[in-house]
Structure formats: structure tokens, C-alpha cells
């Protein structure tokens, strides 16, 4: 008790502030803390509003009012095949009637091409004849129609919509005015002036991002174009990227972190990996072009497996793109995995070794599982980056217009970012709308992929 009082009575005012001074000193420290807090909050708000603006712009363009002209009105078509347009819609027609409509409207050449893609009937031809058919099916490169099952009704209905009704968007509005000034827009479309310039135009609210957009292949007119080919291409490329970069990256990280001695060579390798993570992606594209597309063409074109025809054979395939992106993210995967391995306490390594386990047994069973959540986080971020890469794929040779789905690692391909890039550089307004829709598809794809990976990671860390 006595010591306490003595301590309190002792005067330290020459060393530390006391009384009023202490209050003002603490106040000053508090004020600086408050300022810092506000500053960081403002920074966060800036970041969030930037992202929100981006999302707003995209969504604004992906939905909205349109003025549409049908080349042939569906009512006319229905009337032509002998139904009452008041009672029957285009979708109510039978399969046979739809084929008849198509037969009467498209040229024979277009019809033959459609039939070669996929037949209308199993037992008879609409545009082709038996002799030509058996001849082209016997050739070295038979069209897909030779093996595929015949078309179904929804398929033919879509063909009629695309080829016969042929809706043409003449003007588009953004989402916000479409929602709040809808009547003014409709009045404008119905005005005499507008109708004189665009006879038969009618207002329609259009979600550019719709199921048909997701499931249709690329097409020259924006009304019917879709991103199916690009989505499949992106998934294929990313799958190969991950298959290459994940095992190679984690393996390299394990070697560098657990086995390599800290000698000059290994330090040099480490420095180089760190620098490679900052190399512009287009450089990787050039590397991919030089090595994968050109030098390794016999492998990357798939011709060593006897795939693909000699005329179309080249190395601009999914596997070249996947490996290029794999190389691009490899340094990031290695560095992230190294960090994760380094974060595992050394006591765990010692525990394993002290039991008479080998280094590899310890790594395999204890170190790697403990590092896995970190390894996965780094790899997910790297993969997300690869999914959005455009520049290296332009160099490697992604196709900008392709309507056939990729069928394997040796197919030609396009990916979503390439498709978006290509559409945004078109002059017509409608392409900007579908580019916005494609961006949304890409974002959704990213979110789904990340969510899956985070889910996997959480399950991994829980099972430990």
C-alpha cells in the first residue's frame, strides 16, 4: 500500500505529460486516429463507387427498349400456311409447317448448308438430294449432318425466326430511360417521323442477356448472335490452363520451398520467378505464338494424333491458348504456393521428421494439406486473371468469328474476352449491347468459378 502511494506522489512531469498536458496529448493522438479512419473510409468508398459505376454502365447497356422491324411479320407467316393469326401463333405451328415456311423463304444454297449442319428429317431430304448426300458423306471431311440426329421443333422455330421473320433492331435505348421514360420512347417510335424512316417499327423491351443469347453460337447479326461458342472456348482454355499451371506451379513451389538449398542458382531462379510475374501478358502471347503455335505445331495442331484435316491444320488451338495462359499465371501460382508453404510452422516439419518420416512423407501428409487453403486462394486469383486475359490470346490466334463449338483441345476457339473485344469495336449500337451482355456472362462465370473454388477451399480447411 505504501509503495503505491509513494509511486503516485512521485513527479514524472519532466519525463511524461501529466494532467492537462496528458489530456491534450491523448486528444491529439485520438484526432489523428480519427483522420486516418475517415481517410481509409473515403478510399474504400471511392473504390466501391468505381466498381458500382462499371457495373451500372454494363447493366445499363445490357437491357433496354428497342425499336424492332420484322422483315416478315409472324402473322403473315401463320396466315400463309392457312391458320388464323388471331388464334394461332408462330410457335403453335407444327414441325412440318415450319419446315415448309423455311423451304419457301430461304435460298436453296442456304437451305443445303443448313441441312448439311443438321438434317430436317431422318428419312428424306428437303434441300439436298440422295446422290450428293452420299457423296459428301463419303468424303474425307463429312459435314456434321451426316452423323447428327435430325433437328427438333425449337431448333427449326429458331431458324424461322432468324431466317424468315428476321427481326431487325433499328434503334436502342439504355435501361434507365427505358424504365422511367418508357411512354415517351414508345411515342417516339410510333411517331410519323420515325415510322416514315423505319416503316413497321414497334417498341419492344429487350433483355440482351437472355437464355437464347447464352445458348446461341456467334452470328453476324446482333439480334441472333450468342456466346455459346465463346463460353465453351473459355471453359476449355481455363481447364487446360489450370491442369497445366496448378500441378507444375505447386510442384515448383514445393521444390523451391522444401528441398532446394539456398545456393546461388536457386536464388537466381527465385528472383527470375518473381520478375516473371510482372511481365506484360502480351509477351507471353508472343512466346506462345513462337513456341506453341509455330515450333510445336505438329503437337498443338493435333496432327500427331491424326486429328484435323491437312488444309485447316495449324497450332492456333485451345491447347496452345491454355498452355500460354498457364505459363502466364505460373509465376503467380508458384509465388502464392511458396508463401502458403512458408506460413506452415516449422514445428510441423520437425514433428514429422522426428518420427522418422521422410521429408516427402511429411510434406505430403501434413505440410501440403496445411498450406492448401493458401495455395488455392492464390491459384483462384490467378485463374480469374487468366479467364479475363485477351491480349495473349489475340497473339496466339483466337478466332474472332467461329460458329462451331470446340470439340477438344485441338479445336479452333474463341473466348469471351475476345468476343467482347471484337463486338465493342463494331460500329453498330446493337453490338455494344450484346458486348455488355457478354461482359455480364463473363462476370457471372467468374463469380461461379470463384464461389466453387472458395467452397472447395473451405471444405478442405474444415476437413483438416
Amino acid at each position, binding site marked *: 500500500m505504501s509503495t503505491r502511494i509513494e509511486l503516485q506522489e512521485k513527479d514524472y512531469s519532466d519525463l511524461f505529460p501529466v494532467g492537462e498536458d496528458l489530456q491534450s496529448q491523448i486528444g491529439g493522438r485520438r484526432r489523428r486516429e480519427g483522420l486516418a479512419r475517415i481517410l481509409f473510409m473515403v478510399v474504400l468508398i471511392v473504390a466501391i463507387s468505381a466498381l458500382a459505376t462499371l457495373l451500372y454502365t454494363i447493366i445499363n447497356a445490357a437491357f433496354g427498349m428497342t425499336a424492332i422491324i420484322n422483315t416478315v411479320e409472324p402473322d403473315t407467316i401463320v396466315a400463309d400456311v392457312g391458320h388464323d393469326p388471331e388464334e394461332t401463333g408462330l410457335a403453335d405451328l407444327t414441325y412440318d409447317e415450319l419446315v415448309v415456311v423455311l423451304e419457301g423463304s430461304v435460298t436453296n444454297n442456304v437451305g443445303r448448308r443448313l441441312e448439311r449442319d443438321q438434317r430436317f428429317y431422318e428419312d428424306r431430304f428437303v434441300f439436298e438430294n440422295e446422290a450428293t448426300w452420299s457423296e459428301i458423306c463419303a468424303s474425307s471431311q463429312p459435314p456434321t449432318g451426316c452423323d447428327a440426329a435430325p433437328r427438333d421443333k425449337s431448333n427449326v422455330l429458331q431458324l424461322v425466326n432468324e431466317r424468315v421473320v428476321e427481326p431487325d433492331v433499328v434503334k436502342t435505348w439504355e435501361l434507365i430511360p427505358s424504365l422511367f421514360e418508357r411512354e415517351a420512347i414508345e411515342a417516339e417510335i410510333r411517331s410519323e417521323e420515325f415510322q416514315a424512316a423505319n416503316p413497321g417499327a414497334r417498341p419492344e423491351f429487350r433483355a440482351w442477356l437472355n437464355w437464347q443469347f447464352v445458348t446461341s453460337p456467334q452470328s453476324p447479326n446482333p439480334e441472333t448472335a450468342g456466346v455459346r461458342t465463346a463460353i465453351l472456348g473459355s471453359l476449355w482454355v481455363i481447364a487446360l490452363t489450370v491442369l497445366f499451371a496448378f500441378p507444375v506451379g505447386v510442384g515448383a513451389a514445393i521444390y523451391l520451398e522444401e528441398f532446394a538449398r539456398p545456393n546461388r542458382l536457386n536464388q537466381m531462379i527465385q528472383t527470375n520467378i518473381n520478375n516473371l510475374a510482372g511481365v506484360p501478358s502480351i509477351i507471353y502471347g508472343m512466346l506462345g505464338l513462337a513456341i506453341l503455335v509455330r515450333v510445336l505445331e505438329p503437337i498443338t495442331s493435333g496432327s500427331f494424333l491424326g486429328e484435323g484435316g491437312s488444309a485447316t491444320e495449324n497450332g492456333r488451338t485451345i491447347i496452345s491458348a491454355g498452355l500460354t495462359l498457364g505459363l502466364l499465371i505460373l509465376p503467380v501460382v508458384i509465388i502464392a504456393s511458396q508463401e502458403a508453404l512458408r506460413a506452415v510452422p516449422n*514445428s510441423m*516439419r*520437425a514433428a*514429422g*521428421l*522426428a*518420427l*522418422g518420416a521422410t521429408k516427402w512423407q511429411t510434406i505430403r501428409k501434413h505440410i501440403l*494439406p496445411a498450406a492448401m487453403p493458401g495455395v488455392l486462394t492464390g491459384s483462384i486469383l490467378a485463374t480469374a486473371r487468366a479467364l479475363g486475359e485477351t491480349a495473349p490470346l489475340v497473339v496466339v490466334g483466337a478466332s474472332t468469328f467461329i460458329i462451331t463449338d470446340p470439340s477438344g483441345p485441338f479445336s479452333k476457339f474463341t473466348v469471351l474476352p475476345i468476343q467482347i473485344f471484337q463486338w465493342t469495336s463494331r460500329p453498330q449500337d446493337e453490338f455494344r449491347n450484346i458486348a455488355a451482355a457478354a461482359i455480364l456472362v463473363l462476370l457471372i462465370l467468374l463469380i461461379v468459378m470463384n464461389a466453387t473454388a472458395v467452397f472447395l477451399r473451405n471444405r478442405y480447411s474444415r476437413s*483438416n
Partner: protein
Amino acid sequence: MTSEVRMSEGEVTERVRPQGASQSQSSDASEVATPLGVIVTEGMSVYYGKFRAVADVSLSFATNEISALIGPSGCGKSTVLRSLNRMNDLVPGARVEGSVRYHGDEIYHEDVDPVEVRRKIGMVFQKPNPFPKSIFENISWGAKVNGFKGNKSEMSDLVQEALESAALWDEVKDKLNESGYSLSGGQQQRLCIARAIATKPDVILMDEPASALDPIATLRIEELMLDLKNDYSIIIVTHNMQQAARVSDRTAFFNVKLNDQGMRTGRLVEYTETSQLFTSPKVQETEDYITGRFG
């Protein structure tokens, strides 16, 4: 210093005279007759790069005894301990000179695989370090990696036996599938001891096994060590002199010496029976340390 090793078949003894003792007192009384140890070091020095951490340690650790290494911080006792089963190999640049023999075999011979050494000479660390796995897996894994030949039920028996030997069975028998981390600090340390026992080692090295534990848990570990001594040879590093006095049969006292360049190097000062070291140490330095005049 005189130490002679007779490798005859009969009564094998070794005479080790502590170095410090040889300087201050050179009578025959300072010689302690010890049975030929399970681990014997002769003139062992440990280097970290160019830095010599411990110099010239000659010790013989006896079978089925508890030997304690004591001394002030930085005297190299943990370094000595880790050199006995080649755990120092993990430290980049660590190097051991001199001789370390396990049952007469040089463990630092180039033909010797450190994995084999560690399989025979297990270790328990200062901080409990169970694997982030179930209690059962914590124990079965060591046996598994060393090629345990038994079937599933024999593995269960092994795990139970190890946990019983570590006096942990009654506390965990109903939650063998729970994580090793769910246990308290003292239980975790006993789990680590059980884990070491399950691989049937010959020697168990303990690096301050109770320093992170409360007095009650410490007491349990000490009781456990006295039990285990019947089956294993135990070498323990401790900061706690009472602990060394309570459990050990022999005690080695290490101290730090500054050389001309001001480098701190650990040296063995005195190694003798515990009762003797704590009651009538031969070297003044030892007496100063155990009576609390420094360190």
C-alpha cells in the same frame, strides 16, 4: 580429458571426466564410472555457418536413465540435443564435427540415413506440436510411415498402448476422432509423447517439454518420464533446475564462454550424477549457477 572406451564383450564401461573438472580438479575422484551409453559424443562441436555454437562436448548417455542438460540461455544445450538425432540437419548451414555414436555407430557417417537415426531416436519439442489431424491419426501416422505391419485392430491396440503409456488414454478414449488441437496444452504434450512412443524408439529426446505448461501439467509430464524410463533412455533439456533435480539420474551443466572475438560458444562444464551435481559440484561455475548467483 581422458576417456577410454573399451569395446569388450563383458562389462563395458566408459570413464568420462568432465572437461571443466579436469582443469580445476584432476584427482581420480572426479572420474565417474558410467556404463557405455546408448549415445556417446566425443569432442562434438556444432557450427551454424562459421559460428561455433557448441564446442568440444564429450558425453555418454546411459540406457534406461534420464539425463538432463541444464545451463543458462544460449549455452547450446538445445543445439546439443538436436545434434543427437540429426534434427540440426534442418537448419541451413548447421554442421557437426567430432563423433556422435549411437550403440557404437557414427550417426554422422555419410552412409547413415538421418531418417533411420530419427526413427530410433525420437523427439518431443518445447511447444506441443500435434498434427492438425485426429488424435488417432496423430499416433498412427508415425507407425504407418515406418511401415507398421499390423492390421487395423493391431493399429488400434498400438494407439491405445501408446496413449496408455503417455497416461492420456483415460482422458481421450472417447474422442479419438477429434482433432489433436482440441486438447489442452498439457494433454497435447502428452499426445506428442505418445506419438513418439508409438514408433517404438530407443531413445527419446525432450527439448524443454514442460516449459509451456502449468505446474500441474508439468508434474504429470515428470511422472510420465519416470515411468517411461523403464523402457526408454531419455535425454531432457530443461531450464528448470528443480525439474532436473527431481527427474534426472545424471545432469550435464553447460555454460557460455566468450572467445577472443567476443563470440559466444557453449561448453560442457560438468557432467555427473544428478545428486552429486546439485549437492557437491566439482566446479565453481556449476555451484554459482545452481545456487542462483548467475544465469
